[in-house]
């Protein structure tokens, strides 16, 4: 018999929400980096 308690439903909801938000943040950060890259390229073109 396992000594660990099975997670309560509320904990599962909390983990699911944290996971969803973390995943969205990761995608947003990746998009931000890509956007910064292209902005830098565009700005270099403007100042040439």
């Amino acid at each position: 018999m396992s000594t660990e308690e099975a997670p309560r439903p509320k904990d599962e909801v909390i983990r699911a929400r944290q996971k969803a938000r973390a995943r969205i943040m990761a995608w947003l950060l990746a998009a931000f980096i890509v956007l910064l890259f292209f902005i830098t390229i565009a700005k270099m073109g403007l100042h040439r």
Partner: protein
Amino acid sequence: MTKPAALPADWRDLYALTKPGVMRLVVFTALCGLLAAPVMPPAVIGFTAILCIALGAGAAGALNQWYEVDLDSKMRRTANRPLPAGRVDRQTALHFGVGLGAFSVIFMGLAANVLAAVLLAASILFYVLIYTVWLKRRTAQNIVIGGAAGAFPPLVGWVAATGHIGLLPVLLFAIIFLWTPPHFWALSLFVRSDYAAANVPMMPVVAGIQATRRQIAIYSVIMAVAAVAPWPLHLTGAIYGVAAAILGAVFVAMSLMVLANTATEPKLMKPEKRLFAFSILYLFVLFAALVADRWLLA
């Protein structure tokens, strides 16, 4: 008061805090302001500027809901928003709004230019401090003065493209500024009981229904004239001018139907509901005509 939220906020509720419905009109008018400018920035800079304006509008919406949670919980129309429904706690909303606002302004300054960032910051602060905190609960003119906040987007879009303010974007600002009172007063006529229950001094609650209908008609005429003005001033061509004249005539005619209505029951306020729906279409078509004019006649 808001119910305590025991769970971390769902991302969909954070998204709802940004008032996506309002954001659509903000993004569209900002994009039109940018596209109507005489110089085009690189596509990625233009995209980033519009993104920052959208994020800034979202921040203003979140901070507005953070401050107005007590009002929202009293009105049927807003009672199911994330804060009054207890799905997001106030601190999360405050952090989300401030963070989003600061990010949008700083990113606008880095990607586009400082003047656009200053105007974006001014529009967020105007909406939150002048309209939400100061005017909304104190005067029936709340929507008249507060309307300036919603008038900023095309100006910011133009400045993001050009780096300076011109006469045309100032007129675009004036058009939205004058459009806001008839748009919101038409809505406030048929949700009057909501505003009265929440003690918000909207025009129909304070001055009465017929006085509000008169104000709607007066503002509609002034707005229609202001909307045509760029054409005789040679700032736009005939596509915009004719569209503005026709749309303005329809707007004024619908506002006169509102004036002629004597109903006090919301279910009999069909002219008001029609004017409210048309006012949204009006702004979309007017600004689309501006861009079509600029790109087809340039």
